[in-house]
């Protein structure tokens, strides 16, 4: 049997669609809801956003751009500052070192933990996560203790590496490595928790089917698990990159230990910016450096939000 499938209107009246309707861009609020109530809910936050998020950025850009010497002079001055390039070299070296080691270790550890019994894995993850509570100056102090060959529980490693004295351990050449260790100690646990959650999102039927297809644990990790958490690894890389360039606490606190003669007060760009602002009252150059760092951060944020499909904006 075949009954006509076009919409039937018994009685005949069909209301034709008005042209303007199709493809109308913004839809109006659903019926029964207020189109303005939302403003009240976000009001306080928007005030804070403008005051503390947008205004400082605008102010800094303005300071950086406007200078008696003309547009952009502050930037030129900053670039020409003999400390500028070394500062960026330091943080980029640190960030590279940190990112590579963190990625390998976090992914590797998470995969390993994922193969363990649930409770055991949870216990390890908890232990790895706890150091995150010491983020900031506390972690630096702890590692100052750890790097001192005379009292450190890791003394045997330090001696084996040839460091008999504390001032050898925190020699300038070792700094990026030391900061990478600190950053990893603090942050790895949290990222392992995130990666583990991502692994858990993989439907276990996929893993079972891989097992049936003959893949052992290693192959499953390489060909199934890893590609499926790629998104999160990228997320971790990008966020850490942005954070790495902003390094400030570790070099500053480390520098307070006078033994750290190699840790200058302007080792990282953020430190340099603060230094020129506080020592020379050179807010313009400080603003220029801050803007450069902001651009790093903004670029990362823009990539993640608009190119990656990581975040929903609907």
């Amino acid at each position, binding site marked *: 049997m075949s*009954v*006509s499938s076009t919409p*039937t209107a018994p009685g005949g009246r069909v209301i034709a669609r008005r042209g303007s309707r199709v*493809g109308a861009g913004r*839809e109006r609020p*659903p*019926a029964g809801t207020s189109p303005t109530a939302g403003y009240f809910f976000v009001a306080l936050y928007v005030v804070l956003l403008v005051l503390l998020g947008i205004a400082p950025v605008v102010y800094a850009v303005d300071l950086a751009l406007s200078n008696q010497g003309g547009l952009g002079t502050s930037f030129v001055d900053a670039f020409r500052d003999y400390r500028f390039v070394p500062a960026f070299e330091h943080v980029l070296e640190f960030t590279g070192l940190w990112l590579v080691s963190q990625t390998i270790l976090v992914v590797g550890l998470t995969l390993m933990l994922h193969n363990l019994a649930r409770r055991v894995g949870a216990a390890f993850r908890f232990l790895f996560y706890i150091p995150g509570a010491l983020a900031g100056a506390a972690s630096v102090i702890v590692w100052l203790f750890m790097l001192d060959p005379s009292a450190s529980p890791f003394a045997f490693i330090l001696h084996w590496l040839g460091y008999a004295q504390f001032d050898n351990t925190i020699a300038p050449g070792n700094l990026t490595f030391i900061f990478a260790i600190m950053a990893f100690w603090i942050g790895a646990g949290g990222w392992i928790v995130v990666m583990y959650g991502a692994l858990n999102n993989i439907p276990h039927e996929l893993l079972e089917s891989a097992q049936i297809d003959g893949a052992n644990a290693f192959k499953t990790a390489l060909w199934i698990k890893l590609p499926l958490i790629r998104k999160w690894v990228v997320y971790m890389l990008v966020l850490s990159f942005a954070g790495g360039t902003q390094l400030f606490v570790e070099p500053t606190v480390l520098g307070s230990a006078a033994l750290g003669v190699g840790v200058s007060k302007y080792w990282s760009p953020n430190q340099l910016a603060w230094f020129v602002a506080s020592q020379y009252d050179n807010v313009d150059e400080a603003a220029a450096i801050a803007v450069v760092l902001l651009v790093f951060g903004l670029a990362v944020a823009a990539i993640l939000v608009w190119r990656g499909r990581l975040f929903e904006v609907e």
Partner: protein
Amino acid sequence: MATVTFEGATRFYPKTERAAVNGLDLEVRDGELLVLVGPSGCGKTTTLRMLAGLEHVDEGAILIDGKDVINLAPRDRDIAMVFQNYALYPHMNVAQNMGFALRMAGVPKLEIERRVRAAAVILDLEEYLERKPRQLSGGQRQRVAMGRAIVREPRVFLMDEPLSNLDAQLRVATRAEIAALQRNLAVTTLYVTHDQVEAMTMGDRVAVMKDGFLQQCDTPRTLYENPTNAFVAGFIGSPAMNLLEGTIEPGGVRIGATVVPVANGLHKAVGKSVIAGLRPESLALAAAGTGIPATVRIVEELGAEAFVHASLVGADAVPQKPSNIIARVEPRAAPGKGELVHFQVKEGSMLFFDAASGERLR
């Protein structure tokens, strides 16, 4: 007590060509239970939500007691709604759920308690008043949702497939309870369902919708016996009416290889392609040589009756188009699988529809 009138109500969803509801003219009489039924996407839920104020009305009007309400917020329409998923407030207990609307309206606490208790008695919820929704069974939650609506004493009840989340047995029992409740309270009710059995058993009148258009609105009996088009004919009734393509010939209609005699005059329509509608109960097993021949594919034994699903064949047992036919038979006289049977059509029981438009031919 109220009447609800839809006048040319139309709703377009953004970025779609076809209207979800197209020019709906419908009246719900005071105190009646009108069921909106149709396949998914037909616009019945959209219609209900337009009445609730949860959907914009793009054209036309909706009147409650003669006053157009399309510019009124839901809270100002004096309506109550039972949602398909009940939408109970999970952090409030049953009594608080039922009393919430009254609380919003500023009704004094004692009055709220009185009304909640009265509704709880009607719905047999008294011992559950302190419980939270997650501590209730599906059926109990459904009753709380009803209670929430009753307590408001609104002008109109709106029900959006309230039974579809219950298991089959509970559904049948609750169906009767809701119908009885509505009769007692005599509140004008608009009820949406996709289940035509539910529609037929509960509604004072039933409105069938398809693709945004109202097909027919009538009492269940009228819909069953007098459908206005092939869609309604095929939608109402279970098992579905047989809708067979055929051509009018002198003296009857040719279906497949057989000409079924038709008593009164279709003489003017000779040569026309039609769809013949035959309900399973209008077919009876006949002796060989008369009626429509078919080979049995399968027999559904339902205890009190049996349904034969057969494929039409021609004189030489060659399968014919249209092919499928369902007939009701006495369970003891049911034929076997593969058997060749003949069906006789009860006098005057055939309905005819235009093959192109589906409209009923009279």
